[in-house]
């Protein structure tokens, strides 16, 4: 039987072969695990329930700063929007998690954003009855534990910023805010290109510390968060 015989339609009604469907299934699973980790980390960092844009921002930061921890980004590109990073495919996975009872939503609403597009609004948090076994299982794996530690540190680093600050922080991020990419174009830092200014800046902090001291990987994330906050503050006070 050919793979075409096994074809079925995906969420968008697109015909996919069994191989493509299998790839997409694993990709979706990886995204859902990332979402659970981000939600878990946001809880540990005291910023849960987390707003939808803040969640997508953290997802973006977990991609763009992943090279600092020598990890590959889950998604190396994002469409540059005025309202900050937003991944429609990731949102669909979040919808699935809600339907599966793993994630709960509160303050549900709908908004037209700065790009004149509709989006969901709401705050998300984990339903621990269902989510905890998944988190425990994933953390049992060495690489899963390492990734979870990265996400935790990332959430801690950015939890110092207020909800409002978090909304605007992308406008200061070295990669997202790069003027060479206009709104409506693709910010590519890890899909077809490897030019990642954010990770470069975070890594550069090791040159700025007094000689003999090297920042830990976690400290680099904290220093980068502080750097973005300082830039945001300077922009606002101008």
């Amino acid at each position, binding site marked *: 039987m050919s793979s075409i015989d096994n074809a079925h*339609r995906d*969420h*968008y*009604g*697109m015909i996919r072969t069994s191989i493509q469907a299998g790839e997409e299934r694993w990709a979706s699973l990886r995204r859902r695990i990332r979402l659970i980790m981000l939600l878990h980390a946001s809880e540990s960092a005291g910023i849960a329930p987390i707003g939808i844009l803040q969640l997508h921002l953290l997802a973006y930061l977990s991609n763009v700063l992943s090279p600092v921890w020598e990890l590959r980004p889950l998604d190396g*590109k994002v*469409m540059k*929007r005025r309202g900050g990073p*937003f991944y*429609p*495919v990731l*949102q669909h996975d979040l*919808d*699935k998690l*809600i*339907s*599966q009872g793993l994630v*709960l*939503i*509160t*303050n*549900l609403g*709908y908004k037209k954003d700065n*790009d004149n*597009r*509709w*989006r*969901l609004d*709401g705050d998300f948090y984990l339903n621990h009855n269902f989510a905890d076994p998944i988190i425990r299982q994933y953390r049992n794996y060495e690489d899963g534990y390492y990734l979870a530690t990265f996400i935790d540190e990332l959430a801690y680093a950015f939890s110092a910023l207020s909800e409002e600050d978090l909304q605007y922080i992308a406008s200061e991020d070295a990669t997202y805010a790069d*003027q*060479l990419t*206009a709104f*409506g*174009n*693709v910010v590519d830092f890890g899909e*077809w290109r490897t030019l990642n200014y954010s990770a470069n800046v975070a890594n550069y902090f090791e040159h700025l510390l007094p000689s003999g001291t090297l920042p830990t990987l976690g400290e680099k994330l904290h220093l980068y968060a502080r750097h973005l906050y300082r830039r945001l503050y300077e922009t606002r006070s101008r």
Partner: protein
Amino acid sequence: MINIPVLTSLDITDYGLFPGNQDNPGMHVLFTPGLTLVLGANGLGKTTLITILYRMLTGPSDIPALAWNFPLGSASLRAATISSIQRSIFSQRVVDGAKNASARLIAKFGDHSVVIERRLRDLQLIDFQIDEVKQSPGEEIFQQKVSELVGVWSFGDWILLLRHIVFYFEDRRALVWDPTAQRQLLRFLFLPIEVARRWTEEERDILELDSQMRNLRAVVYKETRSVAAADSKAESAQDTLAEMRELDERQAADVAQREELDEGFADLESKRQTARHRMLNAEQERESRYRKLEHARLMAIEARFPDRSESARYILAQLMTSSECLFCGSKVPTIAAELESRISARKCLICGSDLAEVTTDSDSAGFADSQVSEYIAALQAIEAELVEARHALREAEAEYNNLIQKGAELDKAIAERTARLEELAKRLPPEEAERLKRHEELVILRRRVEAMQADLDTKRGAFKEFLQEVNRSLIAKAQDIQNAFNLYAKGFLFDDCDLTWLPRSERLGQSGEMIEFPAFQVDLGGSNFPSPVRRLGPQQVSESQREFIDLAFRMALMEVATASGVGTLVIDAPESSLDAVFSKRAAEVLMLFAQREKGNRLIVTSNLSEGGLIPDLIKLGVSTQDDERRIIDLFSIAEPTRATKEMETEYKTALYNITKHVGSNKQDESESDK
């Protein structure tokens, strides 16, 4: 900042094509702020008049690639003297060879007043004054002084500016879709002179080296084949030579194939970039429409739902929006329809109980219901686009990856074969000294190609970095250009139209890494597209849109780039492709540029063809007080043609039908009287 000439007046004397009349011989035109209209019939010389204006400013020089309407690409941007046949373009049109004919143009370049007078016979400069000071004769001085007045470093840039900003000839090429021309314009319009110069010089240096390297590679290719042929005739060392011959032949074929791949690489890169952008844009738009529909659904549910659980309501809204059970992933249109019918029948969504008694917010529910079918259609349209976009991206990526893989395989094979050939050449016996020498020379040639390639790579790397800085400085202007473009484009187009800053990756020469050149691209909506789509070429938009998008772009560039914000736009026959509705909008946009208080000069020619543009321009831009100055009537100035003599009545009627609109915009006229 640069200065675009503001044309003030033109006098043409003793030229047979424009004899004028007894009271007023020759042609004398005053270009006042606002519109000047040149009306005539075929053969009366409206294009000649425009060409005279152009040649007054360029003299007998042009950029050869532009004059022949070749794409700029890697062409030289140096101004060169045109041929004697081109120089005699005006003399050929009259029986006396224009022996005494001359034209005198007065223009403002910023704060400076410039007089240029030329013989029409051969374009020779008769008089050249700046601020009433006579300049030394000769084209060299003219070119140098004009470049200084404009603020460009080379006369070639001045010609580019005239061709792509000021003059909109009948055989025009759209600047907005010509990335190679566009980047040159952005270069000299917005960069300091020294940076603009460095760009041109480094670019030319790389292109010349690339050309030399390719020529040398062609020599190596030929020599390789020739050596292989000679080897086949050798009588000694047959085994070694046989292998070398075979390797040489395969090497030549692979090198040729590698070059072919290189040439296709830029297109494929651009294709996959566009496909990815389209897909991500469709994803965002699909998300927006999905949430809009979901919102409408949720409002309908909320009004009838006894339970206040937000997650439960959300899940149901999702199921009804996508017909998909998010829990198990199954498509369940029948359940979605059942839920829909329960809503219509005012029943509980979960148990089906009658909710007629339950108080609901009937206004919001009714509103949401009425919107739903419209939103469903919008969602279906974007989902179809998303399917298509994903498919296109997958294909583009596969094609690109295939090319990269093939290229890598060929590079590896070529490198291994080169090493093997060198090794085999060393094994040739002493009696094959001559043959050995040829092989050694071939090795030296190959090494020279490699060295040139390395030199090119270094130069390209430095140029790439230089351009990155250039892009950063240009982007500061991008928003101003986009704003000005929006003002003009949105007045003309019905569809959403955005000018997007999108540096374009291209190769400089025919090999080497991709370099990002500054560029704008146009995203335009349309009845077949649910959201604005990137239009990569003029063939992707209608003819009327094409011309006016380009005009909007030129006007925007002129407005932002000039020190005074004032300039001249000369358009030869703009009306050909416009329908009645677009004509009115086009006239309004053109007159937005030509508002008298702005100081811009808009010169438009027309041959009385059908259409509403010229009448609409007259309504908006010509009043009864200034019609004689603003309308250049070639029927009374130019030498009549046989057609205009024999069909005089018809032409007079056609002219009357157009000029009768003078002063018909009363409001405007009364304002201008104040």
